[in-house]
């Protein structure tokens, strides 16, 4: 609401500035119709906006002016000098009132506008309106001040991009300087100002990142019209419900999801929702419901489009998939409804028996899925027959900054998007096993056997390392396919700014982008889906289907949770959801500040609160922590020992009386309390500074 108000004030002021000249010209020649039109539009817009905001007084005077001006426009009244003066007084008064709204002080004298309105109606001589003198003279000066106060401005997008890349340059220059300072040793004279520069720079970078964000509202605002037109064309009645318009997204991402969303809405209205007659026959209300909601979770956005139509027809989808050779009959029989539902995203599958001009536009849901996967997102469908379908879109918050795992092979570094990484394991780990089968290599990690690709081989490089010395990165692609990649070593995880590749490098089909490392060195970002596809580790279509969807969203009873099992400082065994554990930090005990009630420590330039600390149980040298984070805020949790990751299974048993425990779960036949990270983060987490995190990680 505040934003809307700011917009209203800015708009009114802009218009006021624009018509200033018109007013003066009109005063000179009151019969000039075009000037009159401009002034009429102004009061008309102000009146319209007032209705929106509930400013009754402003509405009254603008309404009165509009009426009077409309009379003049219609020729029912001839403007004389008194009339012009009255209108000008009204416009001044609007100016004063807007200034009062902006300053938040309601200091316009009550009833001050009455004589003005009367004068406009010709009932009172304007000169006699002595009350008017007060608001007109004295607050007029006041109106000057807020006019120069900061308000929103419009900027060309490429200017923003230039500022953004300028700041990136500055960050690189800073990093270079940091490197040199480190080599030069301690220099107290320079270190202080340099630290200050670093802080300022990360603030600026933060602000710039926010400048690139846009409310998803901008996109959603076009939907009511689209829905109205579509439902009208198809003879359906649809009620649209939009939620979460205030979620902010990188404007590039908004562009990427625009077409997919329109496509899904077309589908929902074209195929999902029934005609009013069909709906009545099915015992539903005549009006179809279409809901579009956006929600931010961590550094991802989820957009859900739900309709209460007939749902997906699994029978028909499966039939068609078999007919198209997408799956075999035996595969079809082994698939459950949910797996069949995901088939709608496969190429060449449109279940509409007749192609209408509404949804049959050539682009299928497969294109939608591909577009989303390209930006690191994914899409999923759920449906209940006769009750409707939902399509979930999961999209990263921003395209240009991703978290990357920096790996090295044959002396060269390559980045892997962290979102693909399931696990990293050294070849020397006792749980690891590898077998050569013909030319294929299989690795077994924790009893799970997967195909393994050698990055050196993919890139045509020579590695000196034996498998035993290599590191294996277990990767899960967006469609659920799993494979391992052997690299020489892992450097670090860091936020990297991804830039597009030149066409000559794109055609290698090995890379999806390039980025600059802290030291200014370029690094290539590996295009893992393409690599997997080229090496036949997944074959398009088929493999996507066979692998069941990741288990974390399966039904409640059989649910397994991947968790980190650890021994807390008080000696009890506990578990934390794996997706919440950002890192395991080991800090020198001396670095932990326990002088206050709330212990804390500084990790990568960030003060983090510490929980779970038992001072008596602390090791004198160093202490281990789980860094718990949901991408937005974080804290440290002290542990005595980190055991391993484990799958928790069984029903989650809620625990009464302890909000810090989410539930009791099972692992290896014993119960274990699952830490309520979400609650703890909400209550005690410290907001992550994006830039600080990036720099800290890169260091």
């Amino acid at each position, binding site marked *: 609401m505040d934003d809307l108000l700011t917009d209203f004030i800015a708009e009114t002021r802009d218009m006021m500035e624009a018509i200033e000249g018109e007013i003066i010209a009109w005063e000179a020649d009151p019969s000039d119709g075009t000037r009159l039109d401009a002034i009429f539009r102004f009061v008309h817009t102000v009146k319209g906006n007032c209705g929106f905001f509930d400013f009754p007084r402003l509405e009254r005077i603008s309404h009165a002016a509009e009426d009077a001006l409309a009379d003049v426009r219609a020729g029912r009244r001839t403007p004389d000098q008194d009339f012009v003066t009255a209108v000008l007084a009204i416009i001044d008064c609007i100016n004063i009132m807007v200034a009062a709204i902006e300053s938040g002080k309601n200091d316009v004298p009550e009833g001050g506008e009455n004589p003005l309105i009367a004068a406009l109606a010709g009932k009172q001589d304007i000169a006699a309106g002595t009350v008017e003198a007060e608001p007109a003279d004295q607050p007029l000066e006041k109106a000057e001040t807020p006019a120069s106060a900061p308000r929103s401005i419009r900027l060309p997008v490429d200017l923003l991009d230039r500022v953004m*890349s300028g700041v990136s340059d500055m960050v690189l220059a800073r990093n270079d300087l940091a490197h040199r300072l480190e080599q030069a040793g301690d220099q107290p004279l320079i270190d202080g100002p340099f630290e200050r520069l670093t802080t300022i720079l990360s603030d600026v970078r933060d602000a710039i990142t926010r400048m690139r964000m846009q409310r998803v509202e901008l996109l959603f605002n076009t939907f009511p019209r689209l829905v109205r037109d579509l439902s009208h064309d198809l003879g359906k009645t649809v009620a649209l419900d939009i939620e979460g318009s205030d979620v902010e997204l990188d404007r590039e991402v908004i562009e990427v999801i625009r077409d997919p969303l329109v496509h899904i809405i077309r589908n929902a209205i074209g195929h999902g929702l029934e005609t009013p007659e069909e709906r009545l026959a099915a015992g539903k209300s005549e009006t179809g419901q279409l809901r579009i909601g956006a929600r931010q979770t961590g550094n991802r956005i989820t957009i859900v489009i739900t309709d209460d139509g007939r749902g997906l027809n699994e029978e028909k989808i499966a039939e068609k998939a078999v007919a198209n050779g997408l799956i075999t009959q035996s595969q079809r029989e082994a698939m459950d409804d949910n797996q069949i539902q995901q088939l709608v995203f496969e190429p060449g599958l449109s279940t509409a028996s007749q192609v209408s001009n509404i949804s049959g536009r050539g682009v299928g849901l497969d294109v939608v899925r591909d577009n989303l996967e390209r930006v690191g997102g994914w899409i999923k469908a759920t449906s209940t027959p006769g009750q409707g379908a939902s399509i979930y879109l999961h999209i990263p918050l921003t395209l240009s900054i991703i978290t990357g795992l920096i790996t090295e092979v044959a002396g060269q570094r390559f980045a892997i998007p962290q979102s693909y990484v399931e696990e990293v394991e050294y070849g020397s780990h006792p749980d690891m096993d590898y077998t050569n089968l013909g030319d294929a290599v299989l690795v077994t990690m924790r009893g799970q056997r997967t195909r393994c690709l050698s990055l050196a081989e993919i890139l045509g490089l020579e590695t000196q390392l034996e498998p035993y010395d290599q590191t294996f990165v277990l990767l899960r692609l967006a469609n659920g396919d799993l494979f391992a990649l052997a690299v020489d070593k892992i450097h670090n995880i860091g936020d990297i700014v991804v830039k597009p590749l030149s066409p*000559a490098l794109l055609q290698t089909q090995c890379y999806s982008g*390039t980025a600059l490392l802290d030291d200014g060195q370029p690094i290539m970002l590996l295009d893992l889906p393409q690599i997997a596809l080229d090496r036949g580790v997944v074959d398009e279509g088929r493999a996507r289907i066979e692998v069941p969807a990741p288990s974390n969203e399966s039904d409640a009873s059989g649910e397994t949770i991947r968790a980190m099992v650890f021994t807390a400082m008080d000696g009890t065994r506990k578990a934390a959801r794996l997706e919440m554990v950002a890192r395991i930090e080991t800090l020198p005990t001396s670095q932990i500040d326990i002088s206050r009630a709330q212990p804390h420590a500084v990790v990568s330039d960030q003060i983090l609160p510490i929980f779970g600390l038992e001072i008596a149980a602390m090791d004198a040298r160093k202490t281990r922590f789980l860094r718990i984070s949901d991408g937005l805020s974080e804290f440290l949790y002290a542990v005595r020992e980190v055991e391993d990751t484990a799958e928790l299974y069984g029903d989650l048993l809620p625990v009464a009386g302890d909000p810090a425990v989410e539930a009791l779960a099972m692992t290896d036949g014993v119960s274990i309390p699952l830490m309520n990270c979400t609650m703890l983060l909400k209550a005690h987490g410290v907001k992550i500074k994006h830039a600080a995190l990036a720099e800290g990680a890169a260091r």
Partner: protein
Amino acid sequence: MTEVLILTQIAGRACALRASDVETVIEIDAITPVPRAPKHIAGLTTLRSQALTVIDSRVVIGEMPSAYPTDNRAVVFRTDGHSYALRVDALHDVDEMLSQPEQITGGFGAVWSRLAEGMVETQAGPALLLKASELARTGEDARGIH
């Protein structure tokens, strides 16, 4: 107004580029190789915080890079939204274009003809005027050459 040219030497030949096509000239200190890249792409280098794709002009025209020494300087140009650094034997001078590009009887040879606008006269003698955008576009064709 006369047009200004940047005179270079590519595989021992006198060549020229329009100064208006060229963003800057840099000294390449390090090239990050890109495995699996087409042969004429030497790798990536950086100019401020921008990654540049390094094109070896000698390879583009079908010569071995080792056959000609280079002074490691490169011409930076931008086309189709991407920035490239063109590695050449040497950069000679900046000079005025004294004549419009002309074709010569018999042509410049298949590869050269595709890259060149024609022959231009300069103070330093005739040079082959190259199209920067064409050098970057070589990607798809280069595979055919090698």
